[in-house]
């Protein structure tokens, strides 16, 4: 436990110190959300109707930022060798790194999304719903991404391969994230149904993603 706590603390310190992939992905998120009204024009009804979808798409894309360095940076400088020599299991190492990554990308995205919802003319209710779905849905994105990051850890410039591998696997999360946000605005499906499925997706991704990423790291050795 002590080893994993140290790993989370180190990754958070690194994210804060290098100028941080966390802040960068938040800015990228803002950029995408800000671009959409320029592309679609000032039709507020249209924007507020597709607003949750835009926020979710932006969240998926900005989760990819920095994901390719999740294991690659440690692989390149030999830190990964240290981690495999630790008494902590490799699955625990993956879990600690994913947690640190989510705390610096997924969580800030979810917290900032009500603010960015203003740009796409969401009302208060839709903002709260979207923020909640992002909060429970972004862990699934990070865990799925971790598998791709582990697979491409030893490939130089593996960022594009990572996106190609990982994006299709993020589709279920995207579907239920958007449908949960939209059902909060009215419709035949109650809000909790897609939200519960979204939570389930995050939990499943947590288990499968951790095991698969650890297996990929072992295999690449």
């Amino acid at each position: 436990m002590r080893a994993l706590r140290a790993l989370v603390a180190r990754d958070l310190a690194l994210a804060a110190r290098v100028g941080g992939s966390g802040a960068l992905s938040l800015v990228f998120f803002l950029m995408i959300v800000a671009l959409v009204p320029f592309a679609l024009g000032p039709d507020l009804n249209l924007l507020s109707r597709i607003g949750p979808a835009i926020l979710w798409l932006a969240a998926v894309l900005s989760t990819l930022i920095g994901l390719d360095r999740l294991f690659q940076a440690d692989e390149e400088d030999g830190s990964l060798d240290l981690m495999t020599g630790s008494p902590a299991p490799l699955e625990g190492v993956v879990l600690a790194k994913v947690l640190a990554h989510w705390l610096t990308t997924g969580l800030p995205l979810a917290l900032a999304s009500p603010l960015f919802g203003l740009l796409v003319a969401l009302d208060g209710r839709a903002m709260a719903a979207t923020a909640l779905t992002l909060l429970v849905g972004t862990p699934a994105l990070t865990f799925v991404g971790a598998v791709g990051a582990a697979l491409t850890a030893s490939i130089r410039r593996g960022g594009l391969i990572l996106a190609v591998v990982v994006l299709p696997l993020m589709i279920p999360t995207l579907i239920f994230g958007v449908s949960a946000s939209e059902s909060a605005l009215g419709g035949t499906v109650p809000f909790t149904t897609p939200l519960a499925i979204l939570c389930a997706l995050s939990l499943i991704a947590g288990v499968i993603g951790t095991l698969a990423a650890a297996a990929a790291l072992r295999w690449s050795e």
Partner: protein
Amino acid sequence: MRLTAQDLAVRRSGRRIFANLSFALGPGEALMVTGRNGAGKSTLLAVLAGRLKPEAGTVAASEVGEATLSECLHVVGHRDGLKSPLTAEENLAFARDLLGAPTATPRAALEELGLGHALRLPVAYLSAGQRRRVALARLLVCRRPLWLLDEPTAALDAASQAVLAGMMARHRATGGLVIAATHQALGLADAQELRIEAPAPAPPTLARTTVAADEVWW
């Protein structure tokens, strides 16, 4: 602890690196691995560290309790495992927490290697020799019986080489094992020597050799 390697053979990217390597080390013993560049010294260390699977042969550790081999060893190689934005102290404190069995504090370990002044400097500001010394300080912050050193004196000045020799002597006096791949005398008293002889690669295989070198771990 005791370490026994029997009939090790390794093949990487279809190319045989070495075969039929055997040695045995008891408490306090040291092994110097020598050979020309590309003979497979680092590969042998990678196999011992459990990062490469040998094609044939076995590596076994005994008298270590329930720990696995990879939990009994320290590796200091070409990739130093240091994070440039973090200070030397933070890097060592992290290694200490990660690897367990803490002994010396990061401050004491760095002072031993003559880097007490660099305690709060980001590793990015340090020279190659100083970085290597921070990596060597990791050997002191947690106790592990087997040290795998890959050309540990690379980039080190004469004074630091003497400090390293002293560290290794003390480690062996307390029953530790040292395996070092090297081109120089390291001041290891009565160490066994394992010379890896390999035929020089023929010109047609040269291209493949470069590919394999890209994949080398450290």
